[in-house]
């Protein structure tokens, strides 16, 4: 029995030593890697979104298709409702360049096309704002690792991101619980100027995408102040697709085009 205990202790100390030897990335490096993963070129995404209103009313489900072109310095995203039938065709175009606050257009069938109001407004009545879709807080100036915590049995580094002077955001800071092995945030919390929790985003399913990278396959977004929640379940993602520039114009979002062919 003693031998077994000694062996177990030796194995665990070796494992501990081996893990301790791996240098943890700095906050800046970690944020830069996550930012690069987020701003990863063109992609087509299909997902199901279910919005559960505050007070426990019936859920509203949507099938959405998302077209996006994300580079280090700019983001263009089109969200289009393809189901249910009575909302099909509703679309939102969001654009952000550099550190501007972002802008966009909304299309409501049959022919209402208007500029978006405020970027903090809700996307299709969900718990996501337009700003949430555009903002890449991993590219913000101030990044700090503020601790570690186990989320869903995974040891995560807590990365705190705060916007710099020239960076526009409705949030004073964002905390992300990062699974370093898969480089995926398993939880994100966004705070208001008064440090109140505005959004909490959790992932319970991490899957591999078409490029073999780990990505969240589902997200649950909670707005503690409102008491509502939105769940997103991804069903398809294609990277490296080719879009026409016209698809990212206010006129272009009036039409739902089929998913582009992957190369």
């Amino acid at each position: 029995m003693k031998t077994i205990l000694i062996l177990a202790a030796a194995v665990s100390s070796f494992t501990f030593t081996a893990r301790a030897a791996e240098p943890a990335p700095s906050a800046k490096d970690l944020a830069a890697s996550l930012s690069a993963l987020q701003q990863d070129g063109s992609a087509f995404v299909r997902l199901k979104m279910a919005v559960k209103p505050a007070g426990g009313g019936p859920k509203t489900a949507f099938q959405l298709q998302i077209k996006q072109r994300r580079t280090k310095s700019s983001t263009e995203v089109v969200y289009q409702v393809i189901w249910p039938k009575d909302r099909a065709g509703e679309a939102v175009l969001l654009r952000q360049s550099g550190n501007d606050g972002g802008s966009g257009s909304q299309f409501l069938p049959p022919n209402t096309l208007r500029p978006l109001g405020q970027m903090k407004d809700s996307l299709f009545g969900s718990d996501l704002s337009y700003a949430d879709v555009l903002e890449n807080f991993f590219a913000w100036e101030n990044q700090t690792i503020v601790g570690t915590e186990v989320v869903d049995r995974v040891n995560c580094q807590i990365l705190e991101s705060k916007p710099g002077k020239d960076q526009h955001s409705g949030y004073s800071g964002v905390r992300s619980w990062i699974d370093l092995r898969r480089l995926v945030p398993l939880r994100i919390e966004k705070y208001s100027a008064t440090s109140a929790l505005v959004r909490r985003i959790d992932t319970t399913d991490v899957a591999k995408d078409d490029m073999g990278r780990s990505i969240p396959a589902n997200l649950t977004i909670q707005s503690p102040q409102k008491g509502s929640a939105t769940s997103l379940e991804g069903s398809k993602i294609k990277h490296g697709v080719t879009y026409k520039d016209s698809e990212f114009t206010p006129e272009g979002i009036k039409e739902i085009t089929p998913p582009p062919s992957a190369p």
Partner: protein
Amino acid sequence: MTFFTIIVRGLWRRPVRTGLTLVGISIGIAAVVALVGISRGFEQSWAMGMKARGTDIVVSNMGSALAPKPFSSSVRDHIASIPGVAATCAIFVDLTSIEDSSMMVVSAREWGGFSWKNLKLLSGRMPNDSMESAVVLGQNAAEVLKKKIGDTVQIEAKELSVVGIVDGGALVENGSVILSLPLYQEISGNEGKINIIDIRATPGMTAEEVKSLCAKINTLIPEARAMPAGDNVGNSQAYRFISAMSWGTSLLAVIVGVLGVMNTMLMTVFERKQEICILLAIGWKRSRIIRMVLLESAMLGFLGGIGGVIIGTVGVKILETLPAIHGLLEPDLSARLMVISVAIAVIVGVLSGLYPAWRSSRLTPSLAMQG
């Protein structure tokens, strides 16, 4: 009093403890039956789907995803020209969220291909041509999507009419949304792409000849891998992962069972120290004492195994009736799995009894006098 009676009496001495130990083993074995049965059922249902389509060989590129990776449809023409290939049918199988359902199998088949022939119309009709905006639904798919003939179903951004409900002869077929390949290629942005080729070999080929044909296809086609029908899912990384998870979870449950039995048997040995010493004093050999303890723990395992098989089977049957799962599961609750599960339980019992048996063999008759 026979040797067997002593064993039974030993277990019956503390009925609550024995009962709780049995519950522990039963739960472990129930996990084996349920999880392994479900994952093997999944594999078998794919194999049955292939058989129902009359497929001998499947060419696909099963990566880490549940659906195979797409490749050029020209591969089909190349394969069709290989001697030994009697017929081919190009397919695009996708797993996607449709309307309010989370994940559905969409099976897009070459128009006129042999994979359409096994579909038995239960109501309605088949699509009229390859580009008619129409689908037929497997009977379980119709139930899950809550659709009937004349309804519409939206795939990607395209609204398609449900023109028929079919029985495909296998769970996978019955859970699929079936439509023509060119139509799906167009609406899903996969023009010129397929991800499965069903092959019928020349009639009369033996299993060995089918395997040789697969090998020949694999040397000629680098884009995908040919396998005898039924083997392809078992070889996919995703299925292997699911299978490994099932066995892994079951193993954990079994380890808990091992510790439970070991604890019970150790307690039994400690409590019956005097009895064992007296048995040694009246001439029982140490090997007979070891046999007694091992048989007691093996019997615990056997009874726990039987209990586990019953709990696992009932549990899976209840799972099958749940609305969220109904029609999606076809577990393999075969006699073979039951026998394997009970055998695992008995082995677990014997292994758990080894240490207590060794402890009991070290007792001496003189200890009986010490009280």
